[in-house]
């Protein structure tokens, strides 16, 4: 992955952001590897390990797929009707590249709107491990680190952040 450019990674992250904001979650699943993981560490231990620290969310690929099923169900009350989200990604950096994987850091602001509610603004950092599969990039690990000291009025992380 020594030849990978920031522009290629940015294109990939922007594409992912669009799929998430448009609730095309089945298509989003196709961006993941067969062993993908998705983590949201707790606000008070952002660098913790999910085997020893209680996370907000720690999914393997099986549970990511179940999460998408849940999110697309009208019985997922927290997200039905779906939140409108709009995420802005910047400060994209290649942290390291090794073999067929690259570790990427980025900052994000994700605005979430729901009925009767004013905006909820999630601010933080993304950390990705991306893998080259053929010509495509795939997400092997996706970690979302929220800056706030507690979730507070952000309430739930009920959508894919």
């Amino acid at each position, binding site marked *: 992955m020594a030849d990978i450019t920031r522009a290629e990674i940015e294109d990939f992250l922007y594409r992912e952001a669009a799929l998430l904001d448009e609730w095309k979650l089945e298509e989003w699943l196709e961006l993941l590897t067969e062993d993908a993981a998705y983590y949201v560490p707790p606000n008070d231990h952002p660098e913790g390990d999910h085997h020893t620290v209680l996370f907000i969310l720690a999914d393997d690929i099986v549970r990511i797929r179940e999460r998408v099923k849940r999110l697309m169900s009208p019985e997922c009350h927290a997200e039905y009707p779906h939140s409108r989200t709009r995420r802005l990604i910047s400060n994209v950096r290649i942290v390291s590249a090794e073999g067929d994987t690259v570790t990427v850091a980025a900052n994000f602001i994700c605005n979430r709107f729901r009925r009767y509610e004013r905006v909820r603004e999630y601010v933080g950092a993304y950390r990705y491990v991306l893998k080259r599969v053929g010509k495509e990039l795939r997400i092997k690990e996706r970690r979302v680190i929220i800056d706030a000291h507690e*979730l507070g009025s952000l309430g739930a992380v009920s959508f894919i952040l």
Partner: protein
Amino acid sequence: MPRSYIVDDPEKRQFLLDREVHVSETVLRDEMAHIFAKCWIYVGHSSELKKPNDFVTRRVAGRPVIFNRDMRGDIHCFLNTCRHRGAIVCTEREGSRRAFRCVYHGWAYRNDGTLGGVPGEEAYKGEFDKSTLGLKQPARFESYRDFWFLNLDPDAPALTDYLGRATEYIDLVVDQSPSGQMEIVAGAQEYDIAANWKLMVENSVDDYHLPSTHATWLNYMANSGVKIERPSEGRVLPTKGLAIDLGNGHFTTDNVNFRGRPVAAWIPIYGEDAKPEMVEIRRELDARVGAERARRIAETNRNLVIFPNLVINDGSSVTVRTFFPDGPKKMQVSAWALGPVEETPTARSRRLDAFLTFYGPGGFATPDDVEALELVQQGLVNWEDDRWTEMSRGMGREGDQLNSDEHHLRIFWRKWNQMMEAV
């Protein structure tokens, strides 16, 4: 003439609740004086303070406090307020400190609360006695099996008397540990819900809502190979569950488990690899507490409410959850995972993973609870034109009381109403 917020009519088998209780600033002010300043309120767990000098800071009953061990290892609770001008004296969330020094004028308190250094002390000429200016403590501070509570009322009964029969159920939770020692796992879940705090009390034990609110969680369980039986005649839940009055406003559900338990009730979500270790956990439990008690610990689950605002959910995992009003229409929730101190890394990892299948802001169920409570609060804007909440379900039922009825919710509301009538 005290006013009642409930209509409790055993003859008509009718129980109604005045919706003003969820919206009113006046009610909240009275709750502060007559409930939060009179009851034992959960502060923290001994395991959060592993070594001498360890501390955490948090808000308890709305008050900023320091929960710490002093140099000798004794556990304290102090109001996090300088005796000089009132500033917060400990600004960190957790850590290890022998002293707390106020940044404003530099008054420094030892971690047993006594006032040590006062810069320029010689300027005080009159009545100034440092020995009376230690950090203030709540009137009472006591523990049961490492759960520490404060009470702002010096005349309150002893904590163990207050807990009464609830101790039986705390014991069932704590006895999961071979050494009888549980610990709070690192990683707090702290979130707000735009709803009155008492709606969380109801929600934590109300199993009537499970099939509709948590349909997607039940689907997830079923998709993962967990056997979910169709409720038999007269039931709304896959297994039988009871609602049990524990006295003093405390109550619990007591359910036949179907959802899996890290203490020794395997479900496919845990994976085949987990089986041998879970058999071993169960064997240790059987040997230590006997077959009948082991069955209760492993094969039943319970959501326990310690009046007014502590919930221990001993279900898919163990969560210790407390919440406090931030105005009548908002609450702040703190939740932690609890596990045996001697748990192996694989068992601990399984416990935390099981927690996330259901609980917390990213779980498969809690976000829908949050949604339901917020919808209630939004609907209650109409309270003056639609005044009464209907809470008569199962009233007058003979014999066992069901977790899917509202028996236990009525226990809470009767106790709450009785304390508010003292206003």
